C-alpha cells in the first residue's frame, strides 16, 4: 500500500485498557520477551495520570504502534509544564510508514494544549535509530544531561 494511503488509514487515538495486549505483543515482537505484568502496571499508570496524553496508532482496527508520556512540571528544576515522551514502540511489520511521526505529532499537539512549552525525552546513546527519529521531529540534544551510577 502506498505510504499516503497507509497514512490516511491510520488512526491515532488515546490509549485505553484494551490496548494492553496489543502493546505487550509489539514489545514482544521487538524485544522477544512476553511481559504482560509490566505493561498492565505501566498502562494503568498512564491511564491514571492522563489517558489522553498517551496514544496508540491503529491500522484497520489493529494497534500497530504506541507512544506513552505525559505533561509534568516541577521535576529536575523544570518548573514550567513539560511534555515527556517516555516509551514508544512500532510493530516491526509496520515500520517505515511514518507511524511514529504521526503519534508524536498527536502527542505534541496535546502537550501544547495542556500548556507545555517544551517536550523532552531520553534516548540511549546506542539507539541511533531512535535518536534519528527524534532529530527528524526537531528534537535536539539538551543541556540537561542525565547522570547515573550503579548501586
Amino acid at each position, binding site marked *: 500500500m502506498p505510504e499516503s494511503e497507509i497514512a490516511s488509514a491510520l488512526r491515532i487515538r488515546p490509549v485505553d*485498557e*484494551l490496548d494492553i495486549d496489543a502493546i505487550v505483543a509489539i514489545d514482544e515482537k521487538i524485544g522477544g520477551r512476553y511481559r*504482560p505484568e509490566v505493561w*498492565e502496571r505501566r498502562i494503568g499508570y498512564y491511564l491514571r495520570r492522563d489517558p489522553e496524553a498517551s496514544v496508540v496508532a491503529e491500522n484497520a482496527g489493529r494497534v500497530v504502534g504506541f507512544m506513552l508520556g505525559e505533561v509534568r512540571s516541577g521535576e529536575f528544576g523544570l518548573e514550567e509544564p513539560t511534555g515527556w515522551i517516555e516509551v514508544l514502540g512500532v510493530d516491526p511489520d509496520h515500520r517505515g510508514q511514518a507511524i511514529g511521526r504521526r503519534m508524536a505529532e498527536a502527542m505534541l499537539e496535546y502537550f501544547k494544549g*495542556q*500548556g507545555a512549552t517544551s517536550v523532552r525525552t531520553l534516548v540511549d546513546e546506542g539507539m541511533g535509530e531512535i535518536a534519528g527519529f527524534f532529530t527528524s521531529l526537531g528534537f535536539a540534544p539538551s543541556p540537561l544531561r542525565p547522570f547515573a551510577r550503579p548501586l
Partner: protein
Amino acid sequence: MNARTTYLPDRFHAAVERWRDTYLQDYDFLMDNWEKHFPHEPRFELCAFRELGMCTEIECGEFKGKPKYQRASEMHPEQAGHLLGAIKAQASTEFGSIQQHRLTLARAQEEEEQFWILRMMAEELRHGYQMLHLLAEDDWSSVSKDSGADMVEEILSMTTGSHLLGAFNIDFDSFVDNVVFCALIDRVGKYQLTLQRSSAYQPMAESMPKMLREEAFHLAAGVVPMRRWVQEAAKDEVYVTMDMLQRALNKWLPRGLEMFGDERGGGTNVRYGLKPMKNAEAQNLYYEEVGKVVRDLNLRYLRARLPNLGRDEAETLLDQVLADRETRQGIRCEDLLHMPHPEFFRRRGVPAFKRVGAAGETFTDFAEYRRHLAAHLPESYLASRDFKDYAEALGQVQRGEMDVAAATSRMPALRRVGGACSCSKAVRWVVDAPRGVVGAGAVEAPRVTAVQAH
C-alpha cells in the same frame, strides 16, 4: 488541564462531605496513603471541573448548529425535563456505586487493587458532586417543583435499592464484584459520558471531559485485576477461578445492557441534541466492546496455560476452540470465558422476562429456566433479594398473573412514597421498599445537611 475548578455552595458541599463520612469511611485512609500508592500524582480534591474551549454549537438533532444552552430556562420544557432526568440518573449512579463498592472493599486480596478501587470510589464521589453542581447551579423551576436543595437531598438520600438504574441496586457479594463492576458497569458510564460530552446543555458537556479521563482509569481498575486473575486461574490457583468470573459476567452484563435504556428508545435525546446516539446503537457498541474484554482475558488465560504459545498461535487456538467446542492442547471450551447472550437474564427493554439462556437458548419452562440461572449466576447472588424479586416476577409473568411492563416496573426503582421533610417541607424520596421491606442501607441513610440547614 484547561478547566475551571468550581465548588458547590458551602451547605451542599458540607452535605456531600457528610455523605462521604457515612459511605466512604476509608477516605482518610486513602488520603493518608496517597503518596505510597500514587506517588507524585495530584491529590484528590472534592470539586467540580468545567472544561474550557469546548464546542459552543449544538452538535446533533433538530437544533444542530444553534448555540448551546447555558441555562435550563433557555430550553424547551420537555427538552429540559429529559436533561434533568439524565443528570439525576448520572448523579444516582455515581453515589450508588460507592455504596456498593464499600460493602466488599475490605475483602481485596491485593493492597494495590484495593487502593485502585478506593481511589476510584473517591473519583466517583467527585463525579456525583459534579452532577449535584449542575442541579444546584441552575434554576430548574421550568421543569421541576423541587428546589436545588430538594434535588440534592433526593440524590443523597438514595441507597442501594432506591437508585434509578438497576445495576446500582444490587449488593456486591465479593471483591470479584468490585472489579467486574468496574470493567463492565463503568464501561457503560464511559459511553454515557462520551455521549453527554456533546450535550446541547453547555454545562453538562463541559462537565464530561474530566470525568471521562478519570473513567479511563476506572476501566483499568477492572480489566487489569481480571487479567491477573485469569493468569492465576490458568496456573490452577483457586482464589478466583474462570467459573467465578464467568458467573460475575453473567450477573453484571445484563444490568449493563439495561443501563442504555430500552432498545427502542433514545430518539428524543438525539432530537433534542442531548446525546448523539440512540439507545440500541450505543448498546450494540458496548456489547461488542465487552466482547473484546472477554477475548482479551481468554488470550491472557491461554498464554498463561500454555507458556510456549505465541500470540498468533493463541489467537488461532482460541478461535478453534470457540468454533468447534473441541478440546485442543488440553484447553476445553468450558475453560474459557464466554459472552452471555444479550437477551440473557433481562428484566428491562425488548428482551425483558423472555427466558433466554446464557448461550441464547430459550426456555419454555419457568422452573427449568430458574435452574439454568442458578447454574450460571454467582451462588451468593442467588440468595439476594434482587434475584428473588426477579425470579418471583418471572414466575408471575409465566403464569399470566402479571404482564411484562408491570413486572419490569416492579424491579428496583425509585418510588416517591411521600412524607414531608420536617425542615424543608419537600416531598422526600426514600428507599424503595416493595412489600414493606426496608433495605439495610436505609437505616444508614444520612440526613442531609443541606436540607437541615433550612
